[in-house]
């Protein structure tokens, strides 16, 4: 056991820390996705710092190597080596200083790595830089009304006519569709092949005629998702990543990435600290909630889980740095464990506030601008989205523990 990153990183940490203090209190204008949390994060860092746009900030971060660090310069990245420790240091220092990290999103988090691995040179040139610099916002067109957990049964159809794909069908749960210029989309192009082998990964400009977007309001009352309808949408035949019928393979590379990325222990720790602050402030019959034995015990329970997750994060990080540490099961459990736990944490905050915990929007007496109520519901969404908890349990038991799949039922 050795938790020291080594002295070569001390210099790097100092450098990041200098950048952070130089930009402390920076205020970012513009709100890319309309997500409540996004706005909140930006707003909470207010003080007397400089004001700049999200895109300007993003480019500044890339120039300094604090975002898109290991993406080649020719594609608009920093062009550094892949060094997980440095990424960790950047995240830690930024969060310590309370300044915003770079803006991700589905395009940057999922499409960019996919293109880097499987895109053509033209696609890389054309799409990566504009995505990183926030000139082009991307949305992900995967789920359909009848293809949720069973994603591979998707039915949106693509037919090649001359040098164009003609697309018909419907996608759902499309975050940020309203703000996006492009969609990376799974489309059934080989209807005669088995379901996993009949899908292609297509890139669709959102201003193509025949696309209709209908906002989908979720339980938080945010229109965070959309339905997207395609009627005879024509795009160039070259807008495909990988070969025809390889779309499932291409998409799965990024899904693995998504599932690993949803349980960030540092975020859980800082959320827990906000909960502790809330419990010190709120009173019941004049007594602080944190002195109330039952609430206190519940808080300690969640803190215990958080500390376990934090240590688990160190173990996964170590496996990333050192060859040969077996953490397959450890990775598989992160989405399930992280989202379920986060929901429990938010739920405790609601109970801490009692009746006040039911206030919403801009109600009088609302605490922390309603962020607890919002997150309480939002994280229920995350338990379901990106592979439900039940799907995660199938993955853990089947792939992790080698338990047999359920026998297939013949379709009626």
């Amino acid at each position, binding site marked *: 056991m050795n*938790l*020291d990153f080594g002295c070569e990183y001390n210099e790097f940490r100092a450098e990041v820390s200098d950048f952070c203090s130089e930009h402390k209190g920076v205020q970012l204008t513009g709100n890319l996705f309309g997500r409540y949390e996004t706005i909140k994060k930006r707003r909470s860092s207010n003080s007397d710092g400089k004001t700049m746009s999200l895109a300007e900030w993003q480019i500044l971060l890339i120039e300094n190597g604090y975002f898109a660090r290991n993406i080649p310069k020719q594609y608009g990245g920093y062009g550094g080596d892949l060094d997980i420790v440095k990424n960790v240091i950047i995240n830690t220092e930024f969060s310590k200083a309370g300044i915003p990290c770079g803006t991700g999103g589905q395009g940057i988090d999922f499409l960019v790595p996919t293109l880097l691995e499987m895109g053509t040179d033209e696609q890389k040139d054309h799409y990566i830089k504009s995505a990183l610099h926030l000139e082009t916002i991307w949305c992900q067109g995967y789920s359909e009304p009848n293809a949720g957990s069973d994603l591979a049964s998707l039915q949106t159809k693509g037919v090649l006519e001359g040098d164009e794909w003609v697309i018909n069908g419907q996608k759902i749960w499309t975050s940020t569709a309203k703000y996006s210029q492009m969609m990376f989309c799974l489309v059934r192009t080989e209807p005669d092949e088995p379901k996993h082998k009949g899908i292609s990964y297509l890139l669709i400009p959102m201003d193509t005629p025949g696309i209709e977007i209908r906002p989908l309001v979720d339980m938080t009352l945010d229109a965070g998702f959309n339905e997207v309808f395609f009627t005879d949408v024509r795009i160039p035949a070259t807008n495909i990543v990988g070969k025809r019928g390889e779309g499932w393979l291409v998409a799965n590379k990024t899904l693995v990435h998504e599932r690993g990325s949803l349980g960030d222990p540092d975020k859980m720790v800082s959320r827990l600290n906000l909960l502790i602050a809330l419990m010190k402030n709120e009173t019941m019959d004049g007594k602080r909630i*944190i002195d109330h034995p039952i609430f206190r015990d519940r808080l*300690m329970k969640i803190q215990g889980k958080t*500390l*376990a997750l934090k240590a*688990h994060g160190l173990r996964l990080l170590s496996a990333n740095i050192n060859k040969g540490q077996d953490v397959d*099961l450890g990775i598989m459990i992160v989405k399930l464990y992280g989202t379920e736990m986060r929901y429990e944490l938010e739920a405790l905050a609601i109970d801490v506030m009692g009746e006040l915990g039911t206030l919403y929007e801009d109600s009088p007496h609302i605490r922390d601008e309603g962020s607890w109520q919002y997150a309480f519901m939002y994280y229920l969404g995350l338990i379901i989205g990106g592979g439900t908890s039940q799907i995660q349990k199938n993955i*853990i038991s089947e792939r992790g523990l080698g*338990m047999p799949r359920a026998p297939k039922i013949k379709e009626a």
Partner: protein
Amino acid sequence: MYFGLSEEQQLFQDSIAKYLENNVTIDAVREYANGENQKFADDIHQGLIELGINNLIIPEQYGGLGLDLLYATAVSQSLGAGIAPVPYVGSYVMAPMAIMLAGSEDQKTKYLNAISSNQLHFGFGASEYIASRENAGIVIDGNTASGRSLFVIDSLNASHFILTNMKGTIFIVSADDPNLEIVQLITIDKTSEISELILNNCKIEVLKKSINNTSIIERVVDAGRIMVASDSLGASQTMIDKSVDYSKERKQFGRVIGSFQAVKHMCAEMTANIQPCYSMIWYAAHCQDNIPEESRLMATHTKAHVSDIASSIAKTSTEVHGGMGFTDDLGLHYWFKRIGLNRQLLGGVEINREEAAKVQGF
């Protein structure tokens, strides 16, 4: 940066696991638990001492290996996994640690060397410092002590005991003292030995540095908590492994029960819950030796959290086995009971969480 057990620590775990697999069979444990083979536990104890479990953390100058608590934690996990019916946490971690931290040079030389060379071993009683039941407790008067200590761990054939009064003053009493009454308690877990000690003006040796310094007993208890948690971790993993294996063999409705989602999800949940416990225990152990500002918080939380997870695994894995899980034939209950005992030792979950809150000034 490397987080986890070293290759050497894993190899040592493997050697203990192999020894226990060959020698601590369910049949042997059952025989012992039924009082039919008292020699069994002694033999296993000797076998494990030959592997070196008794002198891990004792400094080399006193005949030990001078290893850290993480190493001791790795060993504890293997003992729990293999349901070893031997003294460990009290005898070979808490007792030497107390002597190292609070003993005089003479005491260290005398007792640590004796532990290293397997000439004596200690039982350990700290329950009354943590939370006294039945108003038990010990009063020290100069070089004598009187009172009661309930739930003294590792008392099997102990030659000496280390006890504490309610102020955290630590002292040694000999098992031969004519004024000491040792009452063997019978717990659900027949693989652990727990006793009540009744002292009536017993002659004692105080470990003087512990006088008016509760930080020593706290450190010793915290180390013990991590060891007990690790024992439960090992026991829990064994229960999960047995559940997964069983579910791949047992057939109902024409298919193995492991193909039913209801069963798969039970196994997945147990796995999801136990995985972070490994990291938590290792980190907590590392903190004891290297990150003092987090050591108390991590020890208390680890004991509470792992106990909760282990208890739920004990229940769920028994359920995966259906009716067989409830039988003595299968013997799964030995792990269930070990986890049940561990949960209460050195403070139950509520006590540990309350301490964790206090450590943070809440």
